[in-house]
């Protein structure tokens, strides 16, 4: 069972979808635009960082217990990108949700 991939879905992508249902309709247009621009900047940055970490041998992978999906981009398992690309929107949506829950009315939020 490809547990690594399943974990990235459970830990990041499902919460991203769930949080989006709640917070996205409550965000202002500038917040939404800043969110997407941030993701557009962070996605290629994390993509490049992964290769820096791999080429400098920070970590490797093992399939002794759980197989990977078998899809790789220039040698890097696709699970890595599912992890990295899920983390940024997860963090931002948790932040925006926490901000909303703390302050309620967006008029009370710093702009």
């Amino acid at each position, binding site marked *: 069972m490809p547990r690594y991939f399943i974990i990235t879905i459970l830990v990041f992508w499902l919460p991203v979808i769930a949080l989006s249902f709640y917070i996205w309709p409550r965000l202002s247009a500038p917040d939404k635009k800043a969110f997407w621009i941030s993701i557009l900047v962070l996605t290629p940055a994390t993509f490049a960082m992964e290769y820096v970490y791999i080429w400098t041998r920070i970590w490797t*992978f093992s399939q002794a217990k759980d197989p990977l999906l078998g899809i790789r981009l220039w040698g890097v398992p696709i699970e890595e990108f599912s992890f990295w690309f899920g983390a940024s929107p997860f963090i931002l949506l948790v932040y925006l949700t926490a901000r909303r829950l703390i302050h309620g009315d967006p008029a009370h939020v710093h702009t």
Partner: protein
Amino acid sequence: MSIPEDDEQDVTTDASGRFTFRKGKWAPLWALFMVPFLVIALPLYRFVRAEVDWAAAWITVIVFEALLMPVEWYSLGRGHWVYNEARILGPKVFGIPIEEPLLYYLFSPIIIICIFHAFRKREGKV
């Protein structure tokens, strides 16, 4: 084969069944790689610190730490990724390199939130 696939052949397990991997001379790059991010983050923080909701930011850090620590403990135990012992400082928390909770789980959310507010501040001026 690529670097990752080559290195995967060198992963072993210790007496407790934990995956181990060591390649190259000791050079704690995992910790050192955070330095350029912090160098970039400092002026960014100064630019947006009045806009960031720090209560929400710290809640985000706590959520990230609380979620990723057990996830990483589990994933390391399953070999989803295996740190190179020659690239980390050495000290660990529940088998997790200390760089994770002290650097990456702490500063990554703060930096990402500051990036968001930097763009948000620009939108606010439009």
